[in-house]
């Protein structure tokens, strides 16, 4: 939407413009139809046509004038608001440093926006004081109210502002927003709740918040991508959220996938053992996520070795790709042998993953690649090994020469 302001003016202008078009055209149609059926009369066709063209021109001029005026005025308005926000940032910094007294009463929108921008920019004691200022001046209460009622645009603005504020007391409001029937509101609330949860210090409150958020996401059946994003956004609170998501009574496959991917992305080593059972999951995507997670963790629990080895010969290509990447973490002699074998896989992507994994194993892996380039019985395996070694040489030259 190109407009942010003036819904009523917009509606009136377009109602007038459409009327200017519709009324003469209706009259013209009526006259032409009457003539067609042998009832000439009323005004001449020429004058009716002229009237219709004139009305269309007037409508066009009206709309163009509106668009140009709007563009000019909104640009000026935005500029003024930006200057006011910037002035407020300076003022807040003076207040934080104690060289200016705190303003009394309700803050104007630019004052609140400046505080929210500062909350995003600063950390440490300043950030904590900004959160106190936001609460003390009633800004959070007002944003919570706006997040729950009114137009979708206004609600989304309030949710984004709450997301930037990351005030723990607003968590419940945001979790309630996840249950909203409008998916835009639901997803924005989930993201904002995750960022807020990341700032909840009290462990009990954090677990309670994580449970509420996980339940809301499951109830709304949010898609994999959103759940994963929420897990990653919850930063320090991700462990609590993942634990609840995985412990949920019969969690959905997309939820399990998202939680496991979160474990890998955030490198939550304490969950390494929890991932192992999912290496044998019936759902291909969940199995792949579990392999990705152990690979990203850089640690294969002993109980996972069998799963990883059997996944190397899985029917599904993308499972073999992830299994190959994870196999580099097996005991070295076993990893070297299995990865060299995978160089001859029917999928180019698996062969590439095997070559990359061998490179990551250092001198021993490079030696195996060299041998494979000369002696591997499969022609495609020899080609891939040679290509990987050539890439290594180019990388070395680039690193030295620049």
């Amino acid at each position, binding site marked *: 939407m190109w407009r942010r302001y003036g819904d009523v003016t917009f509606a009136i202008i377009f109602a007038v413009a459409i009327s200017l078009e519709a009324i003469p055209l209706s009259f013209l149609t009526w006259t032409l139809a009457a003539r067609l059926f042998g009832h000439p009369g009323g005004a001449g066709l020429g004058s009716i046509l002229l009237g219709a063209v004139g009305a269309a021109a007037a409508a066009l001029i009206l709309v163009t004038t509106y668009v140009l005026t709007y563009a000019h005025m909104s640009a000026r308005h935005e500029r003024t608001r*930006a200057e006011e*926000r*910037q002035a407020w*940032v*300076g003022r807040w*910094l*003076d207040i934080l*440093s104690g060289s200016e007294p705190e303003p009394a009463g309700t803050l104007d929108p630019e004052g609140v926006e*400046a505080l929210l*921008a*500062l909350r*995003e*920019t*600063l*950390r*440490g*004691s*300043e*950030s904590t004081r900004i959160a106190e200022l936001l609460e003390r001046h009633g800004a959070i209460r007002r944003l919570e109210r706006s997040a729950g009622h009114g137009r979708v645009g206004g609600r989304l603005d309030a949710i984004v502002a709450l997301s930037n504020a990351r005030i723990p007391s607003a968590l419940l409001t945001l979790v309630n927003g996840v249950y909203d029937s409008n998916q835009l509101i639901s997803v924005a609330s989930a993201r904002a709740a995750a960022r807020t949860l990341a700032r909840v210090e009290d462990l009990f409150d954090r677990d309670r918040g994580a449970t509420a958020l996980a339940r809301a996401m499951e109830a709304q059946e949010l898609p994999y991508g959103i759940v994963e994003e929420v897990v990653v956004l919850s930063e320090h609170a991700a462990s609590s959220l993942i634990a609840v998501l995985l412990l949920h009574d019969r969690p959905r496959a997309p939820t399990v996938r998202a939680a496991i991917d979160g474990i890998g992305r955030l490198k939550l080593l304490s969950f390494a053992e929890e991932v192992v059972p999912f290496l044998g999951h019936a759902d291909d995507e969940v199995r792949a996520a579990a392999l990705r997670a152990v690979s990203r963790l850089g640690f294969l629990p002993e109980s996972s070795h069998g799963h990883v080895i059997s996944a190397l010969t899985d029917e599904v290509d993308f499972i073999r790709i992830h299994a190959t990447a994870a196999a580099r973490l097996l005991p070295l002699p076993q990893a070297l042998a299995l990865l060299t074998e995978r160089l001859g896989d029917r999928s180019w992507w698996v062969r590439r993953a095997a070559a990359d994994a061998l490179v990551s194993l250092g001198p021993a892996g490079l030696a195996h690649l060299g041998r494979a380039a000369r002696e591997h019985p499969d022609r495609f395996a020899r080609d891939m090994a040679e290509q990987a070694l050539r890439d290594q040489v180019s990388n070395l030259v680039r690193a030295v020469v620049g």
Partner: protein
Amino acid sequence: MRAWKGDMATILAIEDDWTVRTVLEHTLTSAGHAVDVVRGVSDARRSLADGKYDMVLLDLNLPDGNGLDLLRDIRRDQGATFPVLVLSGMRQEEAVVRGLELGADDYVTKPFSPPELLARVGRCLGR
């Protein structure tokens, strides 16, 4: 480049976000430094040509280019020895390592704490 003599330094901050720019100006001037703020790589190149700065604060994601490219040019092509402190929202290990490898004296991630930033600026200038 002129030699930094002590308390007050002339610092060039290269930053496109208006809030961060205001915070940097406020924080550094209140500590007694003189600060010029520019929004992008091309403005920074023009300002650096003056040779009047004791230190540079550099954001990495700039509207007209990458801060790391500018850093490499500053160090390799211009041979500048003044301290460069990277101030970036990129928290990934690779970005930090790359910045330090290209010659940054320090790397501070956003969001940042102004007192900590001042301490790091002081340490860079004191080297």
